[in-house]
């Protein structure tokens, strides 16, 4: 008898679930692990300050988040994708193929990327993009010639740097941070050291040379971290002579373990990033599925709340955590109010 009862209740439960599946009353967000801290702060505040339920925020990386976002329209798909880089044309196409045509792009602010090392480790206090390129590129310029990277110690190419073995923990390829690292540091160093010119002189087309400039050496001195910054921190903890790539807010929360290096002589702070002096920073975004506005309660309100002056402005809780607020926030607010999608139309 009890079997019959149990089975019936199990069946009833699944039936009930199927009918209730249509009604989702909270916003679902997925994407960049760099944006996750900010999104979780706003999600908690949104739940505390409004009568809407607290949104659910998942991480997993910008690319993974946008992929899920682009899977289709409907309550079983996410409403918002967080990204630490702009959406790519390829992804917009994938979205369109799945019927996700109207996307609202929201820039929430800027985030700095810093190079930090163990607080008691070697004196890595000042880098330039050329230093990082010389240390981590597969091919570098030595005495005016392009050769396979022979450097094993920082002092091999810059006498001001400590004579310690090169070891760097950099974000893995699924992170949006990686793209900024490649473009603003490695590629900049590639140009500055003349390696790019040498590549073109060596018979490479300009595009190929630009691509080649983005690669890093694969002999174990540059290690990809596919997890989040805590994993990088653990690796730095275990390797006194290593440097790691962190977000500014993460570094500021761990100043008792890490010391930061300047980049081209500029100390990374929210002020230098806002002023555009610190060279390695990138905008953070989230993308809204317009088709879900009005279907998922609180979606538009959440977006408006997120970019309001009280939250994302210079004196709001996001800035207090380390986000560099966007000077053009007012334009973003107006864009959300008008539900203006990418590529024009509203």
């Amino acid at each position, binding site marked *: 008898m009890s079997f019959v009862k149990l089975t019936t209740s199990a069946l009833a439960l699944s039936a009930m679930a*199927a009918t209730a599946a249509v009604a989702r009353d909270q916003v679902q967000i997925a994407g960049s692990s760099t944006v996750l801290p900010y999104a979780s702060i706003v999600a908690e*505040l949104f*739940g505390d300050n409004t009568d809407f339920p607290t949104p659910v925020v998942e991480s997993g990386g910008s690319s993974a988040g946008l992929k899920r976002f682009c899977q289709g329209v409907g309550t079983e798909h996410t409403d918002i994708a967080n990204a630490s880089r702009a959406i790519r044309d390829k992804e917009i196409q994938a979205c369109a193929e799945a019927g996700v045509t109207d996307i609202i792009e929201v820039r929430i602010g800027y985030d700095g990327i810093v190079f930090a090392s163990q607080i008691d480790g070697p004196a890595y206090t000042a880098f330039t993009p050329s230093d990082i390129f010389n240390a981590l590129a597969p091919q570098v310029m030595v005495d005016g010639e392009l050769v396979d990277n022979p450097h094993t110690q920082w002092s091999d190419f810059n006498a001001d740097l400590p004579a310690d073995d090169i070891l760097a923990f950099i974000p893995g390829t699924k992170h949006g941070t990686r793209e900024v690292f490649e473009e603003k540091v490695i590629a900049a160093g590639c140009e500055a050291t003349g390696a790019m010119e040498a590549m073109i002189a060596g018979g490479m087309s300009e595009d190929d040379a630009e691509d080649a400039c983005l690669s890093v050496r694969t002999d174990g001195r540059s290690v990809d971290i596919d997890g989040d910054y805590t994993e990088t921190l653990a690796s730095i903890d275990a390797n006194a002579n290593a440097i790691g790539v962190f977000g500014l807010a993460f570094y500021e929360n761990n100043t008792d373990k890490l010391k930061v290096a300047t980049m081209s002589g500029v100390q990374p702070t929210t002020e230098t990033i806002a002023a555009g002096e610190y060279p390695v920073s990138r905008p953070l975004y989230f993308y809204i599925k317009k088709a879900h506005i009005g279907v998922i309660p609180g979606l538009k309100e959440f977006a408006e709340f997120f970019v309001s002056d009280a939250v994302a402005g210079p004196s709001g809780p996001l800035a207090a955590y380390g986000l560099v607020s966007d000077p053009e926030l007012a334009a973003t607010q107006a864009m959300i109010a008008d539900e203006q999608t990418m590529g024009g139309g509203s």
Partner: protein
Amino acid sequence: MTDAAMTPESARPTKSLTHEDARTKKRNASERRFRAYGIAAICTGLFFLLALLAAILSAGLPAFRQAVVEVPFTMTQEQFDEAEEAMLKTAIYTDYFITSLSDTMQAEGVQIEFDEDAVDRLLGKVGGDLRAYYRENQDQIGEQIGFELAASSRVDRYLKGTFTRDDLQSGNRFFMPEDFDLIDAMQEAGLIKQVFNWNFITGVDTGVDNPGGAGIGASVLGSFFMMLVVLALSLPIGVAASIYLEEFAPKNRFTDFIEVNIANLAAVPSIVFGILGLAVFIQFAHLPQSAPLVGGLVLTLMTLPTIIISTRASLKAVPPSIRDAALGVGASKMQSVFHHVLPLAAPGILTGTIIGLAQALGETAPLLLIGMVGFVARYPDTFVEGFLEPNSAVPAQIYNWAARSDAVFTEKAWGGIIVLLLFLITMNTIAVILRRRFERRW
């Protein structure tokens, strides 16, 4: 005859029970060595267990204590109305509290000079708690209430001794060196103290800037609802499948094939069930994302083989004489199974089920894919919503906290491990007690 038998005896070297010869010595020595290996193996195991427990307890127990700021606080109706009109209401509540705290500090004779920014740095995110309280108890507006609200994570770590003056090289907007003196003065005035952190047990997850408020309660509930689903589905299905396979099914190639596959399923990595769950339950059946119902369904798939295998083993352990006797007095096959075999196998089945549940309770990987690992900060309102509303699970919550930058979250992750271990120990103890109490030997 006797002589012939005696001769070789006398030729052999003399030996007695008290006098060992070389070979006996060697054999005894090898036995002693083997025992020593065994004891060494057990000691190594115990050493690692103790080291693990010590590490977990020393890192996790601080999570159960929390630094709070204790202040008498009065909210006026005008203040309440003003705050409720703003966009970011909690920030206004926080400001009221900071003002009130500053006044109290001056009244209590804190000698050190401070500004409101310093108070802000020492205070956790109190706005949410305040607003929730006053919205709930509007009749308390105008009354003086003694609040105990969370201090900031650095104050918490300073009182616990994990953050000292030596750790701070230079100040930043999270903490300034002079704040240490202010904390000391406030502690003397009795405004800051450490209390048992009930919020850790009953609370929900919080944003990364509010480590003091984070609690594991909601995810414990999420795990509970998942276990309900797993129990309600895997026990009847698992037991029915095993009874049929063990007692009724004909032995042929088809049932052999099923048996081999059940054994194979038990060895499938759990992440595979997560991918299956995402494809079948969410994308095909359109069940809600991040819901304990889906988590429970996925974990049911994972637990079923374990339950079937252990149930079949305990059915096999019931001697055939019991079945024969039942059939002999005229019981039908089904009567013999349900009246005689199943009750005798029940303790084994229950043990297997509880161990399967305990396994499912600690599982994280499949939950990653169905959206239960993320920021989920709410309690379900009703019993039904408990299955359908997004929630996290204890191991997923631990995984989440461990990845955050504030050290207090790491502490909470260890605390979460203690909570998870307590559940696992309780479940395993129940399994042992059930087995001891109802076990029958033949």
